[in-house]
């Protein structure tokens, strides 16, 4: 009896404490309505306090780049906060330089809105829009890469620069209860305004790529935002040198096709690095492009061709192969898209070949 009384007392006290905490939280975390002043009162939003700056802006159709969906793992959602919103968090520190911190740059996913704040957002981010689309085609490219065509709803059209990327939102699936947002480069050409094509490589255990590879089907609906990014073609080059690996082919395909469509009469070399023949894709597409446009050259290189590949093309690292075709970087621009390791290796080699650092554009993914 005594034990029962003790248990009931402890349970009762715990329940009362829990209720008190819930009530206290409701009052303490209730920041009411807060105002976000953008670009010196150019725009003013009224939002419910307590949410992140990133999500509050997104709910008002202002989309800041974010490839991790607000988990402070991509470092893309930087914006300038002009008000005091507290110290930089440990989660932000790895992504901010001392100059950026001094300048008020913050990761918008980590800034919680608790009062009226003032922010500065670059004009080009206001061009980022939300699109609703239907998956009209899914094509297997390799054992771990697929290409998706997403057709926008009637009346929706996109304007983007070849090389830019979109963000796609996955839906809950299996044991996954939350949505995830990830960034993928556009592989289609800007003149195709009623759809975008994305090339997506499976990340083992990846939240969004698992959804895209294993769960999404033709006919499914998706929500995407974009276009994002400053990796796009610049005009003033004598010759274009493209280097990519894996799904890094996407923006290069878009840029090369855009150059051809616009009738820009410049030489283009596209070096595509892969481990074996099973990692190559769109080969026929690029071979046909070579026949139609003699100034475009496609050079796939296999680092570890298997005997059964019967490969007669270039072998070795893509950086070594490139040196056999390009003598100097003078007057040329290089566009790189691939793994951080590949990009770093390419930059090192290109700089040694007199490519100017400001003429090397890259999209590390």
């Amino acid at each position, binding site marked *: 009896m005594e034990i029962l009384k003790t248990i009931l007392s402890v349970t009762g006290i715990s329940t009362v404490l829990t209720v008190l905490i819930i009530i206290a939280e409701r009052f303490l975390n209730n920041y009411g309505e807060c105002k976000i002043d953008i670009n010196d009162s150019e725009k003013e939003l009224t939002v419910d306090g307590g949410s992140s700056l990133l999500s509050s802006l997104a709910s008002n159709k202002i989309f800041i780049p974010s*490839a*991790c969906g607000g*988990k*402070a*793992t*991509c*470092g893309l959602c930087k914006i300038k906060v002009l008000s005091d919103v507290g110290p930089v968090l*440990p*989660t932000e520190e*790895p992504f901010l330089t001392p100059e950026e911190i001094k300048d008020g740059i913050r990761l918008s996913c980590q800034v919680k809105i608790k009062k009226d704040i003032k922010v500065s957002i670059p004009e080009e981010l206001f061009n980022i829009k939300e699109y609703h689309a239907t998956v009209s085609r899914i094509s297997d490219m390799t054992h771990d890469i697929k290409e998706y065509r997403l057709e926008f709803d009637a009346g929706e059209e996109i304007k983007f620069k070849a090389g830019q990327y979109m963000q796609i939102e996955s839906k809950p699936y*299996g*044991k*996954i*209860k*939350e949505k995830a947002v990830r*960034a993928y480069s556009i592989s289609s050409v800007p003149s195709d305004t009623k759809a975008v094509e994305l090339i997506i*490589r499976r*990340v*083992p*255990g*990846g*939240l969004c790529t*698992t*959804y895209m590879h294993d769960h999404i089907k033709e006919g499914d609906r998706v929500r995407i935002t974009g276009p994002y990014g400053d990796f796009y073609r610049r005009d003033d080059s004598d010759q274009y040198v493209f280097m990519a*690996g*894996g799904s890094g082919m996407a923006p290069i395909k878009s840029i090369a096709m855009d150059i051809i469509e616009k009738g820009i009469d410049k030489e283009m070399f596209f070096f595509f*690095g*892969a*481990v074996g023949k099973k990692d190559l894709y769109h080969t026929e597409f690029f071979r046909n492009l070579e026949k139609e446009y003699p100034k475009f050259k496609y050079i796939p290189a296999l*680092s*570890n061709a298997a005997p059964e590949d019967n490969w007669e093309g270039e072998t070795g*690292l*893509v950086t070594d192969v490139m040196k056999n075709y390009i003598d100097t970087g003078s007057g040329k621009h290089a566009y790189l898209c*691939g*793994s*951080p*390791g*590949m990009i*770093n*290796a390419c930059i090192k080699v290109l700089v040694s070949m007199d490519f100017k650092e400001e003429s090397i554009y890259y999209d*590390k*993914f």
Partner: protein
Amino acid sequence: MKQNPKMKLIQENMQPGAYTAHGFLGDDTRSLKDILRTDDQAVTSMGITHKDIAARMMYFTEFGKEAPDSVVILDGVYEVLVDDHRGFIPCPFADNAKEFKSNTKLYNRDQDREIYWSDLNIHMISEHGFYEGQGSFFRTDPVDLAKILGLIE
């Protein structure tokens, strides 16, 4: 075994959907504390440390990163391929660490065995003695791992 609130939070971070699609615990029904204790005992019984294992993994990973997207041969025995993906992944132990989404595939020709680990695995083994739960995608039993890495006979 009872777990403190921090261990509970960590175990939540390890569930499917928190940081990865498959999570870190596989189909293991043991508590995180029990998983850590069992693997720690296995490593101690080999006369090596978690840091020894992580350092050996890092050795291969760094070697592989020297030649991106390419299989490299080491000591005539090991084939190493490092495979990078966009972005970072945070450590589920809530220690503010985040690692590149980079994976290493190691094939030991002598033993005809292949293992696969992520940069995050190296961190979790080094700092937390965590090899993931049974049935998890990136789990390798510490004794098997030490054998394939050439740390024990």
